[in-house]
């Protein structure tokens, strides 16, 4: 069952993303106010969802599990690392797609409001996490420090989410995860966006799986090289 799910992950992701683009570009109607600019709605919120909640959330949960003695393992550290790398990509995509939408809609590429600034700060946190990993040579110290850092910086995620509620921002409020639970998106536009949410979430897990595999094979290669070097040294000494 697990194997079938893993095999299907890639094709289903591609199918859902293709469906999102097809519905977003050709099936859904233009918006009453935004016209065709609304079509970015089908990619920007799903990308932001993956950047903030899915990937940063996965990195945070994996970091917690690493720090907890009962579940501590290299696998948890690797998952946190890989998820954070993907988070960087999605945070950049969030800012870029938001900018592309903001220029014609708001009239500016960027506004220093609470939502945009706190999202940029999360991007800096994610980059700092990766830099911190490279700064530490000892694998155990590296894993522990980066796990603590990921958990501390995750406090920014709820700040980003509630920034549009707590403060006055140029960025609009939530469209799907509203405080009242009311959906503010019409018919086929909503379905397209929801398919986008599922598609981009699966894309994250697909990327995570592939990145994780790469990391495992890289570690195995390093270990093999060390073993080979030791064997060579031993044979020289014999």
């Amino acid at each position, binding site marked *: 069952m697990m194997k079938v799910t893993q095999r299907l992950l890639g094709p289903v992701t591609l199918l859902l993303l293709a469906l999102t683009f097809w519905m977003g570009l050709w099936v859904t109607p233009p918006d009453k106010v935004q016209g065709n*600019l609304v079509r970015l709605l089908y990619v920007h919120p799903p990308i932001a969802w993956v950047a903030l909640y899915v990937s940063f959330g996965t990195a945070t949960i994996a970091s917690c599990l690493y720090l907890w003695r009962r579940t501590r393992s290299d696998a948890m550290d690797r998952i946190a690392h890989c998820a954070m790398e993907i988070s960087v990509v999605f945070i950049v995509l969030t800012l870029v797609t938001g900018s592309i939408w903001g220029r*014609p809609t708001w009239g500016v590429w960027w506004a220093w409001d609470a939502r945009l600034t*706190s999202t*940029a*700060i999360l991007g800096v*946190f994610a980059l700092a996490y990766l830099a911190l990993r490279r700064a530490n*040579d000892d694998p155990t110290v590296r894993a522990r420090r980066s796990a603590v850092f990921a958990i501390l910086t995750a406090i920014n995620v709820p700040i980003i989410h509630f920034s549009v509620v707590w403060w*006055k921002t140029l960025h609009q409020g939530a469209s799907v995860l509203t405080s009242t639970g009311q959906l503010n998106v019409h018919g086929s536009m909503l379905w397209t966006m929801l398919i986008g949410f599922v598609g981009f979430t699966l894309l994250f897990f697909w990327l995570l799986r592939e990145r994780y595999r790469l990391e495992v094979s890289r570690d195995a290669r390093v270990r093999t090289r060390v073993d080979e070097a030791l064997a060579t040294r031993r044979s020289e000494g014999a």
Partner: protein
Amino acid sequence: MAETVEALTPVEPPASRSRSNRRSLGVIAVLVLVVGVLLSQGLLKSLNYFETVDQALGQRASLGTKVIRLEGVVEPGTIERTNAGASFTLAGSGSHHVLVTAQGSPPQLFQADIPVVVVGHFVSATSLDFAGTQIMVKHSSSYIAAHPNRVKAPNGTSR
């Protein structure tokens, strides 16, 4: 043979712990600097990105001619396009109104009955006229189909 075994005995690794600590501190220092710059640009200066018309008029005396971001809804029938930009009336939630004369071309979505944020200042310490230098459209989180009742004809065209 005894010499070989001694040569293969694990040796103490070089003192990399302090180097790692220094690098980590460097990363944290750069992080604090960058986040500080972002915070000073964004959250600390404009945690609340704008003043509503009601708030601005409520603190009219203290605002003077200070540059602010003013938010309100563009009142229908008041937009006049000028050579320099546009003039229109901005309405607050109550009966408060401000006459805005803005320079520069408004954004693509600028229209009547839409919330906007105008960067500018009141023209004098007591005036209710606002001179804008930039208009930003504040879009709501509602997305409504342009023609929800439009049906498709058998040949695929919309009616």
